[in-house]
């Protein structure tokens, strides 16, 4: 925050975040406050003496106020309830009535308690003043009465009252807009959900797939998917768009559609179906061309894999994304390093891809950094935490692998708030996988929230 009174000449070395300095804010607010210089409103006058009432009425009318009158407490309550004045000026020294009781009654009544009350008092001391203020009066004016001054005090209260009403209206407006925004988010979450695979887990001839998608907000900046490129080749991917919430979610939708093999090759060449030999490297290059940083101002990372379900051969590449992990027999883990940098830089770095082969029972795990960055106060789950879980997961169905990883996250964090979208996809090659839940963790997995 810039210090007040600092002249531009002294600001050379340090530039701070763009927060508006106080003096500029005050100038801005002052202009708005000056607009409310209007000190008028509807005032209920409860003053016993005729001459005093006339003088007060004149002073208030000079200020532009509209006036209501009541002769006693009962009438005051009645008028306050039905006409809803903006202010009540109550003379509590009127004979024949306990003015404090009238004040109390006005504050007690649901329909009048929000109306500010100024007390006029004659011959009372400081104790009575305290009593009046404690009863909820906003002001307490003693003798001698300067009616112009009383009217001015009334004007200030009216101004305050108007500001309070404006604030309430603004709040209500804000709440309505918030509700609308919430509804929009819910709708967006629905759309994003429809972009996800229809089933949590699927078993095909030669390969099984399962996934978890747990966005930190209603909508996520991550996305995942898998698609059959042809009879034998399954493509799978996990995307992580920079940021969270609605803007990031919109971009995930665009990318997801780019990765749909059935979309015909448009002018920008975004169809992956056209990629020869189903090369992940070419897919990433295509995306890098289609999503330059200048276009959406958000880079994204992606892991992209193509698996041949007949032979177990796979090709895999990643763009700045956490390295996919292969689980081999005996719990041996391999990280797939091949790839390039984040999407959007326009070929600043070439993409390469890894080629390999899975054996029956081997799995590949794609995931986003929401899992490895998962932290409680003292420890981060990390790649070590993930590897520890995966080491026990050879030959196991992918849905159980996912359950175990998520359950472990849940344990390590005691269900405190997530810091990032949690996304993973597991593919296991082969048939006859262990689908029993015997070895799985006993804690309940996190509920799918959207």
């Amino acid at each position, binding site marked *: 925050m810039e210090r007040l009174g600092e002249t531009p000449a002294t600001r050379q070395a*340090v530039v701070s975040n763009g927060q508006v300095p106080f003096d500029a804010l005050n100038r801005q607010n002052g202009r708005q406050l000056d607009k409310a210089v209007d000190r008028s409103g509807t005032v209920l006058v409860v003053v016993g003496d005729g001459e005093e009432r006339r003088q007060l009425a004149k002073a208030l009318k000079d200020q532009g106020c509209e006036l209501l009158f009541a002769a006693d407490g009962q009438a005051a309550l009645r008028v306050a309830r039905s006409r809803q004045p903006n202010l009540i000026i109550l003379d509590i020294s009127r004979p024949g009535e306990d003015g404090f009781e009238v004040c109390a009654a006005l504050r007690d009544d649901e329909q009048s308690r929000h109306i500010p009350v100024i007390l006029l008092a004659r011959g009372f001391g400081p104790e009575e003043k305290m009593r009046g203020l404690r009863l909820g009066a906003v002001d307490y004016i003693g003798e001698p009465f300067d009616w112009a001054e009383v009217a001015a005090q009334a004007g200030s209260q009216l101004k305050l009252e108007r500001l309070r009403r404006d604030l309430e209206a603004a709040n209500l407006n804000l709440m309505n807009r918030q509700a609308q925004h919430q509804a929009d988010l819910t709708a967006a979450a629905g759309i994003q959900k429809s972009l996800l695979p229809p089933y949590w887990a699927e078993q095909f001839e030669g390969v099984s797939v399962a996934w978890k998608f747990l966005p930190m907000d209603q909508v996520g900046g991550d996305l995942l998917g898998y698609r059959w490129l042809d009879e034998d080749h399954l493509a799978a991917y996990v995307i992580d768009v920079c940021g969270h919430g609605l803007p990031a979610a919109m971009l995930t939708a665009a990318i997801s559609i780019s990765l749909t093999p059935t979309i015909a090759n448009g002018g920008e060449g975004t169809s992956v179906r056209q990629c020869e030999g189903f090369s992940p490297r070419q897919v990433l290059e295509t995306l890098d061309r289609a999503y330059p940083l200048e276009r959406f101002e958000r880079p994204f990372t992606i892991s992209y894999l193509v698996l041949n379900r007949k032979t177990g051969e796979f090709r895999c590449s990643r763009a700045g994304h956490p390295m996919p992990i292969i689980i081999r027999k005996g719990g041996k883990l391999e990280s797939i390093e091949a790839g390039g*940098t984040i999407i959007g830089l326009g070929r600043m770095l070439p993409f390469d891809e890894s080629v390999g082969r899975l054996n029956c029972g081997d799995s590949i795990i794609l995931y986003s950094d929401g899992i490895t960055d998962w932290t409680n106060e003292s420890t981060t789950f990390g790649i070590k935490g993930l590897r520890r879980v995966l080491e026990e997961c050879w030959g196991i169905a992918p849905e159980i692998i996912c359950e175990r990883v998520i359950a472990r996250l849940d344990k390590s964090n005691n269900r405190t708030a997530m810091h990032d979208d949690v996304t993973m996809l597991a593919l296991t090659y082969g048939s006859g996988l262990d689908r029993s839940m015997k070895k799985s963790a006993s804690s309940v997995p996190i509920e799918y929230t959207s």
Partner: protein
Amino acid sequence: MRLEEQLYGDALVVKLLDSRFDASAAPFVKERIGDLISNGHYRIALDISEVEFIDSSGLSAAVWALKRLGSEGELVIGGARGTVMSLFRLTQLDKVFRIFPDNETAVAALRR
């Protein structure tokens, strides 16, 4: 996010003074660097030695600055610490940026 700017000949060092280079700091850093580039600074060293935490937004801001400078300018990184450096490596941005251990080496590289 507070920034400290210092000129060494035609090399400008922009030092990030706060420890989190994240979604709340990134827009301001981007805007400021954008202004500096518009004002004719084309050789910039981003000193992130005080940064303890960087996320995709921070990286995105750095990358944006690099692209903005394009071939007519240069952006180098100085003082990437442990976890920050890990993220550059994970995203392979360590192959995109020239990263130096400290301010001095970064400036020297710019002035060469």
